[in-house]
């Protein structure tokens, strides 16, 4: 029978002790999904919700109050982000994951991105103006993709468009990192950690698939997780005897 603990309960139980050992004995793993509501509740604690010092909170706040990207720039970024990571059968789009807001913040946090991003967006509008007589956001989807196709494959770019390719690679990196650091992205990636659990080695089927195995000598040194609640005892030769 599977006993399900949510993240908060599990942490609480581990704090009190005992439960984690129980998890092993029952062969249960806590559910991987997190409760976003409890996360929101946690953000109410002092420290800005993620352990900030006063100075760090002030810096975060100052950055949030600043504006760098213009509405037009942000609109262009939004189009680009969703070309880079559209919604599909596996997960939502970059804008579903709030990537444009992330980029708007990160260029303030890391000012060295400012010229490449702003200049790259200007480059893009210049390119679409010369090809289609319109700014990039005003082009049809087909025209937008026609430009992107020419700058999206760094190994096959016409030398005359190399700066555009460099800009697109930057946008791809920022979009990817903005996406995979959200719940939508993490679920798509299949990361199932960041939750209290009891590590007891690589699953057997994975070992088999990889053609690997634990050797017995090594395993004999490792923790037997049924003893994880037990105080250790050693003999004078430093052998763990209990």
């Amino acid at each position, binding site marked *: 029978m599977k006993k399900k603990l949510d993240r908060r309960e599990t942490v609480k139980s*581990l*704090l009190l002790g005992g439960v*984690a050992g129980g998890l092993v004995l029952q062969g249960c793993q806590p559910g*991987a999904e997190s409760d976003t509501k409890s*996360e929101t509740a946690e*953000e109410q*604690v*002092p*420290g800005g*919700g*993620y*352990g900030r010092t006063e100075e760090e909170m002030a*810096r*975060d706040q100052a950055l949030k109050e600043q504006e760098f990207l213009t509405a037009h720039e942000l609109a262009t970024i939004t189009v680009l982000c969703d*070309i*880079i*990571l*559209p919604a599909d059968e596996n997960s939502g789009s970059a804008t579903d994951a709030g990537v444009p807001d*992330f980029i708007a*913040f*990160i260029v303030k*946090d890391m000012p060295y991105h400012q010229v490449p991003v702003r200049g790259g967006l200007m480059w893009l509008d210049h390119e679409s103006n010369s090809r289609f007589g319109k700014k990039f956001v005003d082009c049809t989807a087909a025209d937008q993709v026609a430009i*992107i196709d020419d700058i999206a*494959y760094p*190994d096959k770019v016409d030398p005359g468009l190399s700066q555009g390719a460099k800009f697109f690679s930057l946008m*791809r*990196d920022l979009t*990817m*990192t*903005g*996406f*995979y*650091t*959200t719940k939508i*992205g*993490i679920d*798509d*990636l*299949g*990361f199932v*950690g*960041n939750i*209290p*659990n009891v*590590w007891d080695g*690589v699953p057997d089927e*994975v*070992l088999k698939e*990889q053609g*690997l195995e634990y050797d017995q000598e090594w395993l004999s*040194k*490792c*923790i037997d997780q049924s003893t*994880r*609640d037990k*105080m*250790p005892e*050693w003999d004078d030769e*430093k052998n*763990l005897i209990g």
Partner: protein
Amino acid sequence: MQIKEQSTQYDVCIVGSGAGGGMAANKLAEAGLKVALLEAGPFFDPAKPEYQTQLKWPWESPRRGAGSTRAFGDFDAAYGGWEIEGEPYTRKNGTEFDWFRSRMLGGRTNHWGRISLRFGPLDFRRGDYDGRGDNWPISYDDVAPYYDKVDKMLGVFGSKENLPNEPDGYFLPPPKPRLHELHYIKAARKANVPVIPSRLSILTRPINKQRGVCFYCRQCSRACRVYADFSSSTCLVIPALEGNNIDLYTNAMVREVTTDENGKATGVSYINKEDLQEYQVKAKTVILAASACATARILLNSKNTRHSNGLGNSSGLVGKYLHDSTGASRSGFVPALMNRKRYNEDGVGGMHVYTPWWLDSKKQDFARGYHIEVWGGMGMPSYGTGFGVSEMNRFVRDATVGGYGSKLKEDARRFYGAVVGMSGRGECLAREDNYCEIDPNVVDKYGIPVLRFHYTWSDDEVKQAKHMQDTFEEILTNMGAELLGNKPGPESQYGLAAPGRIIHEVGTTRMGSDPKKSVTNSKQQLHDVDNVYVVDGGPFVSQADKNPTWTILALSWRTSDIIIDNFKKMNI
């Protein structure tokens, strides 16, 4: 918590609450001495929600955990970094040294890999072994009983291996290797490089009722809310504060050791960072544990007519023999790890396996040796995840680099967890001409003269880094990996990290029996001033290829016992 002016005469005043200071505070208070513990930063306790970063998700940080505010990212527990606003340091003659400071309760024990290695018998007598430096005035046998006690008090997992220069401890059982670590073991062994379970101060089983057991979130660097890993704040200082023998002064930036007309220390003076006023703490004994370089700075700044060269500096060696570990890394993309089945492989906050130094140093073209740390796996995404993922397509037949759309999501999924890397951490020779001194022209925002560094790598360290790169390449190749980036060559000193980057600097108040050739004696007591002790990494004569924390703890406990003994004798 903040006490402004005190008339209390303390038995002991301790400067710094990291490994050395925390241990001394804990032991001296336990013995009933009245202790003033001064910390240059704020209070910190990861059991309290306002300090917690553990188990947070990347989106809880607007920069997704990037390092633009904290050096190792928003979620790292350590405040501070290589640059601290208003607290500069300088460098001499175009040389390099990066100085990491963590101003907070527990100091830099809030940022470390929990790698807890004992120095071996050979590490205490390098002078005899290769003549490239000096012996320590103490041997492994002097320190061993304290290593034993530290193991039992603070907990370390590992395995009994009976290796000659990698002494075993009282180990808790280690966790099983992760998948990429199994690949590493196989590939390293094929290259005749041994691998053993790592030795980290993380509790896989309980050692007392105050601390919880590891719940395998891989986030020791974020500080553990159940105290399942060692840091000085959670395991030494906070428990000791429950007694009544310690007054903790936070945000107290020590300027100098004060002395009387006989040249004896009377306490310390400090700047209270909150009101920017200067105060004095009076104590019968002063223990410096501010970190190797910060302690040297305090001693050099404690200049007066009796100590014209700085306190304890009749040898002129305070600040000299500064040495940090060498470090170099390489990584590779392992096709066998593509399209991995998902499961939680967080494990503990660090590697589960490692390679201790395995060769005969005398047969190499460089001095001493290094150990290898291995990393990889399906880690939690943070800022940087997804950068250049598509580049990995270069290694896959018929695949295209770049692009957009669902293809990118497919790339992210199939390449996730397929990169494995290794880092070498080695011993640097201790040299008199690597040093820190007081910059005659610069003060920090508290008006305290700052340090100026002079540091170069010698040919030995460069050749050691070359050996690391050759070894990494061989092991990664054995793993079937495609090596990422170009192999670092002589133009980059084989990828040797800048001095200070590994954050293991020691040696600035080195111990010895000859007061002309050393700053402290075998008790870590200043030769020149018998009521001042140094219990950080400063007294290290040589550094070994081992992380210094466990040795700092053992030596600090040993010195604390000596001090307790002195007090008992005086009282009787």
